[in-house]
Structures are given as structure tokens and as C-alpha cells.
């Protein structure tokens, strides 16, 4: 029986385009005085994010799902603006836009807010992609108003549930009582199945000001309603990047970590030890600033018109 999985999942031509993109990224940041760093992929701690599953390495710790924690510690140590290009690992099934191991570009700008960073994201995309259309911006509210026809903050839960049918999305079969009442459960489904796929049809678009309940590690602004200073970059309906005006308050970060940790344990999901080193770094003082993480494989797939990110990486999970 012939073994044909020795061959790469990407063509050599695609790999050349990948190399060009990586080079373009390094040149971009070098020209702007942003320092490249590399931090451990293996750590004693991990993310306790509710919906991100990490790989445990028996006896050695956890593989990083993002270099965020280590990079924030560098910021607290006075690194100044930094970027990293690295493989990250998430225990997820392989799919058109997913591979358990993928390449992340992550960078941090001390002293900037998320709006200033969005300007740079737009600028980087323009630098990397020939003839890229100009980037647009809109709020989470505007995206839902336009593509879902509802107010994500005020629409009653019943409207969120029943409205899905109008967009040909079958209601989830088994919804626990807890999930049925969880506004974010429904907003996630709307974003994933209805709104997201319609974003960025004409060019890159950044959605900002997420519901406060979806703040992750971003600051929450006390508007009416309160919003998370978080943004996501979409293009051709694909989510390419996620950025924050970073939370710097160690107590608030500790509270979020604890809540997520408890939630994961209650769901019997493997829960890495929460990162005490990050909390200590925040207590020591991380400068105000903004950061963003971008999926390089997805950006490349979009540029090349590839059917899947597997076509843009040397060996996808099936051939690794």
C-alpha cells in the first residue's frame, strides 16, 4: 500500500507565497521599530478561556493557544512594542478554516488604544496584499443591525432564537436550559452562521465594540450599554484577527480567570492552571496599550483564493 501522505498539503507555489507574506510581515515591523520576540510554546500554565481547548503535554505542561500571556509579561518588563510569528495549538477539529496547529501573528503597541491599532491592522493588510481594497470599520451593533436585522444588545431572547429561522439556520437540537437563557450562546450562533459570513464581502472590515460579556481580555467601557474595547477583522466572511485595548487591572483579570476556570471545571472540561505569572506581571505594571492576534494561514488562504487553509501550510494535521 503506497503512502501518499508524505507529500505536502500545499503546493510549492503556495509555500512561496507564504514565505513572501512572512517576509513582508517582518519587513513591515522592522521598518516601524517593533521588535520580534519568541516565547515558549510549552508552559506550566494555560488559557482558561471557556471555548478554547489546550493540548496538555503529559508531565510537561500545556501548549500555548496564543503567545499573549508571555508577551504581556515582556511588556510589563519594559520591552516596548513587540511582535511574534509562531505556531499555536488549539484542540479543535480540522476544517476548512481550522487546523489544530496554525500560525499566529501577534503584536502589541504600548500607549495605543484599539482604534489606533485598527489603523495599523488596516495598514499592514494593505502592505501585505497587493491591491487590497481599503479597510472599513463598523460596530458590533451596526454589523448586527445590517446583516441580522436586530439589535444585539436589546433584542429579546425570543427574537434572537426565532429570528434564526428567517436566515435558514436550523435551531440547535439540544440546548440546555442554561444555554437557552445565555444571550451570548445565541449571539455566537448569529455571528458564526449569519453575520460573520456576510462581513467583508467588498474588502477587509473591522468590527469593534463587542458586548461587555464577550470582553475576553479587553477593557470594558462604561457606555450604555457597556461595551468591550475589542475588535475583529473580517474579510470575505472569514474572521482573520482579534484585538483588544488590553485589560491592565490585575484584580479584574484575576476575577475573569477565576470565573472562566470555575465554568470550565463545572463543565468537566480540562482546565489548565491559570497563569499566575501573567497576574504578577499585571500587578508589577503592564503599560496601557492595545494588541492583536492574526491568523496568518487564513489571511494567506484568502489572498490565494485557496479552498482551505490546509492548502496554505506545508503539512496540515492529517499529514503531520
Amino acid at each position: 500500500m503506497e503512502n501518499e501522505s508524505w507529500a505536502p498539503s500545499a503546493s510549492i507555489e503556495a509555500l512561496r507565497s507564504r514565505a513572501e507574506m512572512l517576509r513582508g510581515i517582518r519587513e513591515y515591523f522592522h521598518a516601524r521599530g517593533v521588535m520580534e520576540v519568541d516565547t515558549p510554546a510549552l508552559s506550566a500554565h494555560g488559557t482558561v478561556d471557556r471555548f478554547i481547548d489546550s493540548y496538555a503535554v503529559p508531565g510537561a505542561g500545556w501548549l500555548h493557544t496564543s503567545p499573549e500571556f508571555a508577551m504581556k509579561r515582556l511588556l510589563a518588563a519594559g520591552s516596548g512594542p513587540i511582535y511574534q510569528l509562531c505556531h499555536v495549538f488549539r484542540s479543535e477539529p480540522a476544517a476548512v478554516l481550522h487546523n489544530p496547529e496554525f500560525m499566529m501573528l501577534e503584536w502589541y503597541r504600548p500607549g495605543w488604544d484599539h482604534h489606533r491599532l485598527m489603523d495599523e491592522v488596516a495598514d499592514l493588510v494593505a502592505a501585505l496584499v497587493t491591491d487590497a481594497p481599503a479597510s472599513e470599520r463598523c460596530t458590533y451593533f451596526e454589523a448586527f443591525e445590517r446583516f441580522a436585522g436586530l439589535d444585539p444588545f436589546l433584542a429579546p431572547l425570543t427574537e434572537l432564537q426565532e429570528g434564526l429561522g428567517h436566515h435558514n439556520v436550523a435551531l440547535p437540537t439540544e440546548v440546555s436550559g442554561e444555554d437557552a437563557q445565555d444571550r451570548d450562546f445565541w449571539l455566537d450562533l448569529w455571528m458564526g452562521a449569519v453575520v460573520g459570513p456576510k462581513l467583508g464581502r467588498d474588502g477587509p472590515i473591522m468590527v469593534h465594540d463587542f458586548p461587555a460579556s464577550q470582553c475576553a481580555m479587553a477593557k470594558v467601557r462604561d457606555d450604555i450599554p457597556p461595551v468591550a474595547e475589542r475588535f475583529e477583522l473580517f474579510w470575505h466572511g472569514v474572521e482573520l484577527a482579534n484585538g483588544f485595548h488590553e485589560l491592565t487591572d490585575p484584580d479584574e483579570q484575576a476575577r475573569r480567570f477565576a470565573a472562566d476556570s470555575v465554568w470550565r471545571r463545572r463543565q468537566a472540561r480540562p482546565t489548565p492552571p491559570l497563569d499566575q505569572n501573567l497576574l504578577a506581571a499585571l500587578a508589577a505594571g503592564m503599560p496601557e496599550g492595545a494588541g492583536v492576534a492574526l491568523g496568518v494561514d487564513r489571511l494567506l488562504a484568502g489572498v490565494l483564493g485557496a479552498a482551505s487553509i490546509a492548502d496554505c501550510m506545508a503539512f496540515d494535521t492529517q499529514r503531520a
Partner: protein
Amino acid sequence: MSMIGTNDMKPGVKVLFDGVPYSVLENEYVKPGKGQAFNRIKIRNLKTGRVIEKTLRSAETVESADIVEMDMQYLYNDGEFWHFMNPASFEQISADKIAVGEAGQWIKEQDEIRMLLWNGAPLQVTAPNTVTLKIVETDPGAKGNTVQGGSKPAKLETGAMVHVPLFIAEGELVRVDTRTGEYLSRAGK
């Protein structure tokens, strides 16, 4: 009863919903940013043929359906049951009119068919996409009062009725598309 996870529901996999067997046609993994993951699947009801969509939470498990697809040889029918044989094992199995369905009008003895078995029992018989059958009854040509356009009805050796071109005569062999019931071509003498 074996359960499979949403991520293992690849096209072609057979699953049960409310006791009814379905074949998975498509499975789209949807995961927004830092949110929950879902699988939007398109599945075909193996009894009715109807296609429906379902949204599952990525963690869900569903009962897999014990569906086996097998090539078998049609032996004969006794009016009530249709009898088939597994050419590899020589095992015989009989299927009723419901399982045989449309296929019954196209197959003659020794033809190879595709059989779907559910929990070991015949669920559905599918005839080959095209078959060659003899015309046992048809009017000679332009004469006759049932001519429509340039075709006329003809009865095949299996009892099926098809419309054939006027020049086709009784006793001739014709190729028919079993999916549409349409005449394709002459098949030589």
C-alpha cells in the same frame, strides 16, 4: 448503540435522529472568535430521501446508524419478496416491496444492485444508473393513436413503461436511465 461526535460526521457517515436513519451530506464547522463552536449539517433521510439541515453544538454526540452499503445480485421475486445474493459470501437476503421501491421496475435476474441494510435488514435497493432491457410490447411506428410528438410508449421485459423514439421496434434492446425513467439509446441486437 454507538455514539459519534459532531466532528466525526463526515459526508457519507450514517446517523440516527429520532430513530430515523440519515446520511450526512455536508458538515460545516462554525466557530466565532472566542465563542461556542457549532456544526451545521445537511443530512438525507434514508427512508424518504428528503434533505434537512440541523445545527448541533460542537460537543454533541449522536447515535450512529448501523447502515451498511453492499453490492448484491438480484435473483428473483416471488410476488411478495425480492431475493438477492451477496456475490462474495453467497448469503441470500429478501427485501419487501417498500425496500425495493422504484428499483423493482428496472432490474432483471442476475443484475447487480446496491443494497442499503439497516441493522442488517434491507432498507433500500438502488438499481444501476442505467440498464439495458428488451422491449416486449410496442406499436410498430407512426400508426397508432397514442403517439406523442416523436415518441411512443413501450413496455419493457420487467413490466416498466418508457417512451421510446418511433423507429424502435418490439424485441429491440434499449438503454434506460433508471433515475429519470427515460430512454437513452438503442443497445444493439
